[in-house]
């Protein structure tokens, strides 16, 4: 085939393009994924029943600020990394800031507590449930957001995949926070932060396979 023939083919009946399609598709996938994750948590695990307690409510809000903050920044990064060349103009390091923040807070809270309490603060009551639930609940949002990114054109597939995993993991952690009654900052830093990091690694590993175009 001659390249000129191909150009003829491609430039016959050219349609106008919606320029905001990429960001909108990714944001929609994130929103739908969040609703599904929340529904899954409320139906299978149930919500916290102690939110009338001021201390519990404040802890819940604190957790949501952390997880939703990560969702928000990860979505912004992802809508850049989903485009060709996005990796060349957006340094990835900034995304680590919420994690650095929560680890710092966790260290402060450990230092201000007697060391006899450390084990309870770190391990909590239900670390295993947290460790299993967040990655499992992340599967649906992960599939949805991956689908949205596939409709764009990422050129650094490992990083785009990692960001997809990060979005899915933090969406899942947001939903799980509605159930989880372990409120110590070190617990959140380790088990929420850790499972979100795990989802990110899974995304990085799957990205090159799932995102090729």
């Amino acid at each position, binding site marked *: 085939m*001659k390249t000129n023939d191909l150009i003829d083919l*491609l430039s016959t*009946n050219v349609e106008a393009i919606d320029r905001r399609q990429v960001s909108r598709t990714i944001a929609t996938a994130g929103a739908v994924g969040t609703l599904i994750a929340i529904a899954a948590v409320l139906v299978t695990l149930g919500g916290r029943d102690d939110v009338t307690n001021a201390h519990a409510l404040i802890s819940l809000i604190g957790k949501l600020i952390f997880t939703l903050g990560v969702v928000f920044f990860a979505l912004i990064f992802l809508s850049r990394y989903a485009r*060709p060349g*996005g990796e060349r103009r957006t340094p990835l390091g900034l995304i680590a800031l919420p994690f650095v923040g929560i680890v710092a807070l966790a260290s402060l809270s450990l230092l201000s507590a007697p060391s006899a309490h450390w084990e309870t603060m770190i391990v909590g009551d239900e670390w295993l449930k947290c460790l299993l639930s967040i990655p499992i609940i992340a599967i649906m949002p992960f599939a949805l957001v991956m689908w949205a990114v596939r409709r764009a054109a990422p050129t650094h597939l490992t990083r785009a995949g990692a960001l997809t995993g990060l979005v899915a993991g933090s969406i899942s952690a947001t939903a799980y926070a509605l159930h989880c009654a372990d409120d110590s900052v070190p617990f959140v830093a380790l088990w929420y932060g850790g499972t979100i990091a795990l989802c990110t690694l899974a995304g990085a590993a799957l990205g090159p396979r799932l995102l090729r175009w």
Partner: protein
Amino acid sequence: MVIGEDELRELMKASLGGDAAAHRDLLERLSRHLRAYYKSRLAHIGRSASETEDLVQEALIAIHTRRHTYDPAEPFTPWAYAIARYKLIDHLRRTKASRADVPIESAGEITAHEDHVDTESAVDLGRLMAQLPAKMRTAIQHVKLDGLSVAEAAVRSGMTESAVKVSVHRGLKALSAAIGREKAS
């Protein structure tokens, strides 16, 4: 400043607005840049220049079908370069060569040179079209080859207008994938 950035960006903006003449002009210019780029890269790593035209066409299809991923607030050349480089790496991976062979140049590399010699690629469009599902083939034939409007194609093929649009879009992606497979085998 990258050579031709302003012109290319204006053409891209017009093309995203649905201007077919601008789209053609853009693809023609890009094809010359892509040809020069791929020829020099392939020569640089000791590969046959005969793969050039296949790559040029694959990159053009990618630029066309993924044009919604260009953000008009950003410079155009880095976007086009990222696609060109991605397709080159993908091609080398498929044909067993390593990514390390493809250095990151400045994005301006993509518009630094032109090459007008349009040789034929190894791809036989007719044969690839024959492999497409009937709906996609009919839609592409009507809209892209015969130049019918989407509405006319819809009447002629008995599909709805949106089905015609979707079929053309999917068909072009399938063609692009088929060109890729063609090269791998």
